[in-house]
């Protein structure tokens, strides 16, 4: 009997360390896009809190913690990352499985902001972009979700099909920063 074998988006591409910065693939678990129905944002937030222990995130913010996070994902949308969504959420929001739609990487180390400054048109320096902050923006030519998850660490998401370009672009930037010494 045949069996379906799962593959990660960045398989064969990561991990990668250049200079002081390390890039690894993250396995985020279940990813669920939540889009609250009209006027249901508060109810959804309450349900989310009850079921998963985190509020529905405000724009540009992520709630929860590693392994169980809700990341604001744009106009009328958040991405629940980690737990399988509780059935109660569907009363207040559309619930769409996106577990396989995104390549998720973790980039960390001294100078990581300099690496991202080569690709992202948003100020991600610690004073302006703190832990728990997130943006929807561009990473070179790709739309991306970027979240600060540590003092020197970011989670970056792009469409799954673009994993190779993501790694290529980050690698080039990492080399440029490393070469500056």
């Amino acid at each position, binding site marked *: *009997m*045949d*069996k*379906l*074998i*799962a*593959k*990660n*988006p960045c398989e064969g591409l990561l991990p990668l360390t*250049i200079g002081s910065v390390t890039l690894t693939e993250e396995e985020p678990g279940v990813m669920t*896009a939540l*889009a609250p*129905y*009209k006027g249901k944002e508060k109810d959804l937030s309450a349900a989310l809190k009850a079921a998963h222990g985190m509020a529905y995130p405000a724009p540009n913010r992520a709630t929860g913690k590693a392994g169980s996070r809700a990341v604001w994902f744009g*106009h*009328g*949308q958040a991405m629940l990352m980690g737990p399988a969504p509780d059935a109660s959420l569907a009363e207040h*929001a*559309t619930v*769409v*499985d*996106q*577990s*396989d*739609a*995104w390549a998720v990487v973790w980039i960390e180390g001294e100078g990581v902001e300099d690496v991202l*400054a*080569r690709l*992202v*048109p*948003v*100020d991600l*320096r610690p*004073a*302006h972009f703190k832990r728990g902050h997130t943006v929807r923006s561009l990473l*070179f*030519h*790709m739309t991306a979700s970027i979240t600060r998850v540590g003092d020197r660490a970011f989670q970056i998401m792009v*469409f*799954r*099909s*673009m*994993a*190779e*370009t993501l790694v*290529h*672009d980050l690698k*080039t*930037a*990492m*080399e*440029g920063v*490393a*070469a*500056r010494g």
Partner: protein
Amino acid sequence: MRIKGKGLIDRSRSIPFMFDGVRYSGFEGDTLASALLANGVRLMGRSFKYHRPRGVLTAGSEEPNALVTVGSGASQEPNVRATVQEIYAGLEACSQNRWPSLNFDLLAANDLAAPFLGAGFYYKTFMWPKSFWEKVYEPIIRRAAGLGALSGQDNVDKYERAWAFCDLLVIGAGPAGLMAALVAGRAGADVILADEGSRMGGRLLAETYEIDGKPGHVWVDEVQAELEAMDNVRLMTRTSVAGVYDQGTYAALERVHHHDGRHPHGAPLETFWRIVAKRSVLAAGALERPVAFRDNDRPGIMTAGAVRAYLNRWGVSAGKNVTVFGNTDDIHRTARDLLAAGVHVAAVIDSRHDAPLSDDYPVLRGAQVCGSSGRKGLEAITVRRPSGEERIQTDCLAMTGGWNPSVHLTCHMNGRPTWRRDIAAFVPTPGAVPGMVPAGACNGSFSTAACLREGIAAAGEALADLGVKLPEVAVPEAEDTPYEIAQLWAVPGKGRAWLDFQNDVTVKDVKQAAVENFRSVEHMKRYTTQGMATDQGKNSNVAALAVLADATGRGISETGTTTFRPPYAPVSIAAIAAGAEGRGFRPQRFTTSHKASVARGAPMIEAGLWYRPSYFPKPGETTWRQSCDREVRMVREAVGVCDVSTLGKIDIQGPDAGAFLDFVYTNMFSTLKVGRVRYGLMLREDGYVMDDGTTARLGQHHYLMTTTTAAAGDVMKHLEFVHQGLRPELDVCFASVTEQWAQFAVAGPKSRDLLNGLLEKPLSDEEWPFMACGPVKVLGVEGRLFRISFSGEHAYEIAVPARYGASLFDILAERAEALGGGPYGMEALNVLRIEKGHITHAEIHGRTTAFDIGMGRMVSQKKDCIGKTMSERPGLEEEGREQLVGLKPVGESKQLLAGAHLYNEGAEPTRVNDQGYVTSVCYSPTLGHMIGLGFLADGPERHGETVKMVDGLRGVTTLCKVVDPVFFDPEGGRVRG
């Protein structure tokens, strides 16, 4: 000539370099220009038009003469300013625009023909005989023109782009900029200080000024050290701010490795910065302007400020016997600096009648230099005094016509500078760039003390808006000499007096332009080419317009300036485009079956950003057609597998999902049953077809829309617009799930057999009729199945979460092969759909209506939808429109070509006889001949008629029968069977 003990160079480090094949040496800190001058080299280039011998004129990026080519091979860099290029061991530079050599340039003959080559001469000649312009004249002109040469080889160097953000960007690190950055930094503001030089300090490095009793450069070092220690301050040297854009966006070019010739792995040669600053202080300094007099372009004649810079910063005297000429006190400072360094000053020629006298050097008051001599370098000047003309031997003339504040960046947003009569210069107009405050010399304040004061004030003004309060700072003590100038643009007299050195524009040219009624400053510029050289008129604009003003009897203010446009200093294309070369031009999107397809030998072709397999060659197949024909037969006779994941998939949910779909599609979706799929047509608001695709109803409030691969992004944008902009009251949400699902078409009479091995429950026509959809378990994984068909066969599309895509493709392909089928690519997909008359964006190319493609009846009359009203305009659905038909060759020629045009059988193939065109063609292995789809005037009424297909490009004429666009199985029995 190097002067002992002078300069800010490191004499302990001697550096060898080459210029025009000759080995020289200089010191750490030298530019190519300073090192060549130190070695006694004066001739460094040739002018553009007359190929006049030229030496260095300035000591900065505005240099018009000393342009060289650095390096060779793919790294060859043309038009490098010798005044900016720092030397390093191994640097190889060559002069340019000369043949065979710099010293002996045959094209210098142009100089003799100068009387015939004046302003705009080419507009008046080269017209006879008619054919000679392109064949003879233009090629000669082209070859003679241009400066340096590109290598012609692909770029191999790395470049980089980056972003930076700050509260305050300070542009220029002279006294004003340093002071502004210092106080802003102390106040805790987030500061970037950028300077184009290799070292901060600006003119303080070139002059002998003291600040707070210390030599200027020592003060600079102290300030720099304090700034470096601040976390909130970022210092960027070798960084030229090139452009100012809206809302505080600045472009800057950092030269990262030009100065050392090193290429550490991954290191960029240049970085192109996008700096976003809430406020900025412009402290760009000023540029000195030459004076126009006869033959003022000889090597050895340079600006006085450059002579001082070479002396004070690089310890080089530009001559042994120097003369100085000008109209401000700067000439006396120049003489004093030279004398202090032990250089002989032959004479100081001051155009002002009340000029100060000196005991140390001869001063000729009220005098002007009116000519020069010396073949490839200055030997003597002629001075005109009230008493008569006098010749003075000299090997270097330091001249000044005063200073032009560097107002350029304040003009990038359409600001016009303001003329200040007292300093005979343009200064920035306040508010020209929102949030930018000019300070110091660029603002027309030339003394060191004024620069320091204005630096503090500008930082205060800029930051006050941001709520940052500056600490009290004492203004350091420095010279505060008033700037006194007597206007002097061009010394009257015969002969040619240069304004634009590189482009060889003289005072006469400007006057002639005025005579010919090119009196607007823009006309003069365009007619003479003044200001269009690599310095963009930095050395010539003001003097040229002063000459024009004089020639037209207007004031300078009234005459106005041309427009300063970005970039301030030229920026390489490679830097601005960094990262986009080759495959980096756009992201690459790979399907989950990509690797497996490549492993099977499939050539991958671009489909938007995606890659898709063209065909899957089998052993023995030598052409794509063989593979394609086999794949088509395979689908028609057994089963084929094709990755269709690239089609856009949009998940649409909410109580109003049905109503929303009814509004974006021409046909009804609210009436679709759960578990069923329907084909939908989408219009643009102007009534033309936008896209098509199938939409499945997965639940009461849950739909899944598919779009074409090409239009996926546009459709998403459109849906968001319709929802947010036109129908925000509808409770509906959508999410792209294109990437979540890997989806494969399984098509052919044996498709059900293939799938039955993978699904929990065998498929039946009762449970799974044509256009059914629903959830399934695929080898234990939750998936989705759609019984839809693009090929016209009994077919399904099966979807699983993308992580399983690669695995499922392998299993499907292997099982298909076991059933006598296999995977198929885009070529076969295209043939299958043409055989069925299915359209793609080759047919819905943005100019076709539902009426044109035979789907007019799909525009429901029961409801409004996007595009409906405009689709009912008379011109969009009337007689004479070109409409979709099938085409079949019936004459001798059996060839059909997409892009060919259609004519009536007996008509000449001319535009006026045009009846339509062919959009898609293929060889149909099913039918055994070529078939085509096209648009023909009133086509549907002409089935059975013979028309003529003409392809003039490829010399093919084919008689075609007009037929129904559905060539194969018109009843559609196979999809249901």
